């Protein structure tokens, strides 16, 4: 199947500083891709390039379209929620529905209406009268009702309570996702979405430092809770990360035989959050430097 997004040699500089540096990756249809990185790592810049919101160098194709030159055509098939995409305070819920219906060829009002019925949002309320959670629900209702092939979510649940966050992702999976659709999501709360992701892209200082399918993580990465007396032997196998947890050392390995590691301690498959920490956290030199 042809890729939905293909980036090659993608770069973006802001006042001489590289926000995205020579990035190449592709996203296949039907995937749920987590774009994970720290603040300022380049996530939002990358999304902005994909959405045609910022000029860039390099080549980028989204749904076979050029985001800069064919932005209007692209937005017919792409929907996005950014944490900074604030719904205007003066807008009434009914007006939001009218507007979407009048503007968007792929908007199905009935879907949004059905979703809103499960909430406490009233049609004649203005956005300024809704709580932050309700505004996000409204935005989600509008976006889910677009039959978009690509949904881009940039920190969509920032500042929401746990229940609302959980409901957001449940709705997304239950009402929206199918094999025709692709979601690209960034979040700080990796643990909350790692169960729904099919792919992860780690980005650090504008570069992709890990591009993997979640189902292959188990065969590629091993986490070892090492016995103290085996630490030297474990280090000899060249872990790419080492940290201390509960008085024991946790080492993370890439492409090292799991059978061999099992002799040195307790092996497990790292979660996405574990991997993120292992890949991106500066090594703790107090507990034994790797260099």
């Amino acid at each position, binding site marked *: 199947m042809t890729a939905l997004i293909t980036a090659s040699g993608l770069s973006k500089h802001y006042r001489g500083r590289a926000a995205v540096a020579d990035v190449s990756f592709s996203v296949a249809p039907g995937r749920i891709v987590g774009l994970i990185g720290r603040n300022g790592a380049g996530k939002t810049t990358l999304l902005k390039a994909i*959405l045609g919101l910022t000029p860039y160098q390099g080549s980028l194709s989204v749904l076979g379209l050029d985001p800069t030159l064919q*932005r209007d055509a692209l937005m017919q098939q792409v929907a996005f929620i950014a944490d900074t995409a604030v719904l205007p305070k003066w807008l009434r819920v009914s007006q939001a529905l009218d507007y979407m219906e009048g503007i*968007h060829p792929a908007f199905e009002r009935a879907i949004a209406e059905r979703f809103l019925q499960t909430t406490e949002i009233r049609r004649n309320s203005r956005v300024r009268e809704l709580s932050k959670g309700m505004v996000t629900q409204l935005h989600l209702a509008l976006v889910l009702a677009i039959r978009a092939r690509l949904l881009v979510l940039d920190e969509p649940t920032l500042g929401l309570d746990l229940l609302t966050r959980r409901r957001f992702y449940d709705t997304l999976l239950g009402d929206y996702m199918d094999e025709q659709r692709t979601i690209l999501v960034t979040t700080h709360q990796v643990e909350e979405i790692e169960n729904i992701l099919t792919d992860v892209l780690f980005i650090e200082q504008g570069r992709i430092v890990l591009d993997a399918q979640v189902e292959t993580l188990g065969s590629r990465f091993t986490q070892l809770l090492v016995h103290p007396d085996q630490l030297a032997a474990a280090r000899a196998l060249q872990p790419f990360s080492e940290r201390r947890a509960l008085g024991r050392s946790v080492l993370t390995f890439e492409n090292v035989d799991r059978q061999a590691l099992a002799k040195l301690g307790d092996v497990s498959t790292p979660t996405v959050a574990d991997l993120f920490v292992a890949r991106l956290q500066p090594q703790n030199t107090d507990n034994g430097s790797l260099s």
Partner: protein
Amino acid sequence: MSAVVHTRPWFTLVRREFWERPGLWMVPAALAAGLVVLGIAAALQLAQVDLSNMQINFNGGAMTITGSVEAQGSGSIDQPLRLLVMGVGLLLLTVSGIMVCSYLLDSLYAERRDRSILFWRSLPVSDSQAVLAKYSIALLVPLAVYALTVLTTAILLVLLSLTPQVAAHWPPAAFAQYASALAELGATLLLNLLWYAPLYAVLQLASLARRTPALWVLLVPVGCIIAEKLLRGSDYVAHWVGQRLAPLPLQGAQQPGLWLGVLAAAAVLALTVRLRRYSDDS
């Protein structure tokens, strides 16, 4: 998937503007309603006033109909009719004109100020659609206000004609006179929409400023005027700006500046569309 989806982008985009700023239609409508109320009061008053000293005062002097119908003869009501149309029309058009200017100056700024721009941008509306829809408000509002003027003056006339004194002295060509005054107002309005097209476009362009668009609109021309005064001792720019801001009378329709201005407006609009593209990118 449903086969055919009917969207109405232009209608929806224009409607959106009125949702955000209901004052654009509410203020002229309220003014017109106020005039009608005054008209009713005047008509009631008139029924009791001695015709030899007929005096109707609308809105504190914005429009005055004075003089004695009897003394001036039947044809003389022409002037009051013209005054009625022009008075109501110019009052409503001036108020809405000022509102339209302040609207344009804020049109591409408000969406960044309230940070809703990424929401609007997440939808398939091109920059040219967004810019032109907002610009069209500056043309639609005065046209709607003109229709409102026709309605308001018609109501006022009917009210006046219901009073027995006026009815008795109603000139035979009253309708023709009324219609010609309306036609003149309409023609002047259309001419001035073209005349002010570049001003509207410049105000909208200024609304792309990172902050305080009003300051740009004031500072740039004032800066040019002062610079010219200091460097060359002349004041062509001041003269030109003054000329460009003053409304164009019907006789001015022939002047080439009118069409050059329309061309300039188109160029400024094209620039605005380009600049809006990345206006929130930093």
